[in-house]
């Protein structure tokens, strides 16, 4: 994992919490979520124009002209985020592997491929076996749930689905935004199929995100009613053991070797706690400092 200044484990209220999302990832996710919601709310009244709620929603934004503008700004932001994420991935690839390997003269393409293969979100053979183990579990064939790493197959599915969805929606979106420019290079039917593709892909994305992703992220048996992961970036220990067992073991091993990666918030709170005498003393010192200074001034 990329080393950031955050502790791998935080202890709060006697419970250990494990780092899963670093601040950059959290921010990217916030931007993705917000642009997604804006795009849906400005886009669906057009897609479903025949429903009675369509007109009021468009009026809420201030009419169709403004609705379109919001839709386009959100769309551009989302595509920009998409490109930023590519940069983010390559930046880490260089910073964590390529440059150190080259500098220590131990670079090899095979190892680079391994680096990519074992990076957190990359789909691996294990995900396929995990999926089948899961199917066996839900069909009552076994009582054992598969053990997962930092991101399990559902999260990888959601992640890579976005890698498909944003290019499709972005590209078709641009063709629909500038149909005159688009048809100077492409035949007319390209705009017609962009219209269909944009509309249908949007519905697919919404149905998968609003139901599947929300269920996995917040509503399943472990996390109901909400998981704080997207806000804090940390997961509590019981959830880690239940769903991310391999990652739980991995982080435990890391903090055993390097206890400075643990931040004990309980202990810190203890130390910060002042007795009543100490509190009063601090107040009186403050007052005497300020009043003493004023007396000093007036003497002159």
């Amino acid at each position, binding site marked *: 994992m990329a080393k950031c200044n955050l502790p791998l484990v935080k202890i709060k209220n006697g419970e250990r919490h494990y780092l899963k999302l670093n601040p950059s990832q959290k921010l990217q996710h916030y931007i993705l979520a917000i642009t997604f919601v804006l795009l849906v709310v400005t886009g669906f009244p057009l897609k479903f124009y025949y429903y009675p709620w369509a007109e009021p929603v468009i009026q809420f934004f201030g009419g169709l002209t403004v609705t379109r503008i919001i839709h386009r700004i959100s769309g551009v932001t989302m595509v920009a985020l998409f490109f930023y994420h590519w940069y983010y991935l390559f930046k880490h690839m260089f910073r964590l592997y390529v440059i150190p390997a080259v500098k220590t003269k131990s670079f090899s393409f095979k190892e680079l491929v391994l680096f990519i293969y074992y990076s957190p979100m990359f789909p691996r053979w294990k995900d396929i076996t995990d999926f089948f183990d899961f199917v066996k579990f839900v*069909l009552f064939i076994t009582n054992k749930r598969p053990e997962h790493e930092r991101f399990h197959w559902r999260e990888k599915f959601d992640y890579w689905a976005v890698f498909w969805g944003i290019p499709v929606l972005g590209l078709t979106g641009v063709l629909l935004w500038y149909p*005159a420019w688009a048809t100077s290079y492409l*035949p007319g039917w390209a705009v017609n199929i962009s219209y269909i593709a944009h509309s249908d892909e949007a519905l*697919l994305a919404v149905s*998968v995100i609003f139901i599947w992703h929300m269920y996995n992220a917040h509503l399943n048996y472990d996390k109901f009613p909400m998981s704080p992961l997207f806000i804090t970036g940390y997961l509590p220990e019981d959830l880690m053991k239940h769903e991310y067992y391999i990652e739980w073991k991995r982080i435990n091993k890391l903090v055993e070797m390097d206890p400075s990666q643990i931040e004990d918030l309980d202990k810190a709170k203890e130390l910060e706690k002042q007795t009543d005498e100490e509190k009063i003393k601090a107040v009186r010192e403050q007052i005497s400092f300020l009043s003493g200074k004023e007396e000093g001034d007036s003497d002159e």
Partner: protein
Amino acid sequence: MRKCYVPILLLLFLLFYSSLSFAEEAILDDENCSMCHKYPGLSRVNDEGYLRLFYINSHKFAQSLHTKVKCTGCHTDIKKIPHDDAKKVDCSTECHIEHPETGEKFSHKNISKILNKSIHNPENPNVNKAIEEDFPKCTDCHSNPLYLSIAEDLQKLHGSRDADEILQKCDACHEKRSFYSYFFNHVAYRARHLFPAEKIVDTCIKCHSKPEMVEKHELKNAASTYLDTFHGKAVKFNLDNAPTCVGCHVKDNSSAHLILSHENPNSAVYEGNRYKTCRDDRCHPSATKNMGDIKMHVVIDKNMYPAEYYTALGFTALTLGAFVPLMLLLLLELIREMFPNLKIRKDK
């Protein structure tokens, strides 16, 4: 005995002067049709079983486009009171309106001539099925609209003021307010769109969305396919300059009565020329030839438009293929969670 003359005189007075209207703009009714037609209850069930209402609200009529026309100007077959069944009005009649300068009698017959050159004439060779009764007559698209909305409408004209403020200026030279307000309404009404955009679409929809018409005349359902496009939605949501049927199917500077068949090279939507219609200054000024090929009336049909059909099919398959399995897994997991230790297979 003299006292009893008063109520009789009163009755006679009321009888003879009942046609007097106290509104400033009185309708021209020297034949006194209002004697009967002013009663709201005047109605009859016709031979086909429909209730026909014959009430004429003279105040409303006075505010309408046809206010200066006498009743018999359009209903030319009424010769006496009480009259026989009136025939349907022929809008190309010369009514008694005269041109204020030339004295020429006015008539809509020029419009009929234009309409006969368009696709809405069953004798046009480009028509698929020449079934006369399906083709529109004047009243199928036009009603007798009111000027009443002028005041509010005018606010929407850029930089305009209150109707009364404008009319005040006429008062200095022209005496009769009823004359100059009529003239003002006549021009101001046409300064805005004759029909609001949504109303144009609603007018054409009356025939062009009926499934039986579509079948009979071997057309696509022009109305519903149009409403599915961005243009149709833009008109519904009041986007400025959004094109209605008339916006694309009528050539610039030509009458809406002259909608030509798309197979006619002079038509605004003729294959090779379509992009010029798109290229209007208010719409897509940079349109090139291929833009005319963007279909506005898409039907998802394998034979008609395969590209769109397979795209729609592909995405439907993708959506269901992703959504259904995921939902299945979700439900299965929920059920499984109710019985965490209940495996069926025995331990080895």
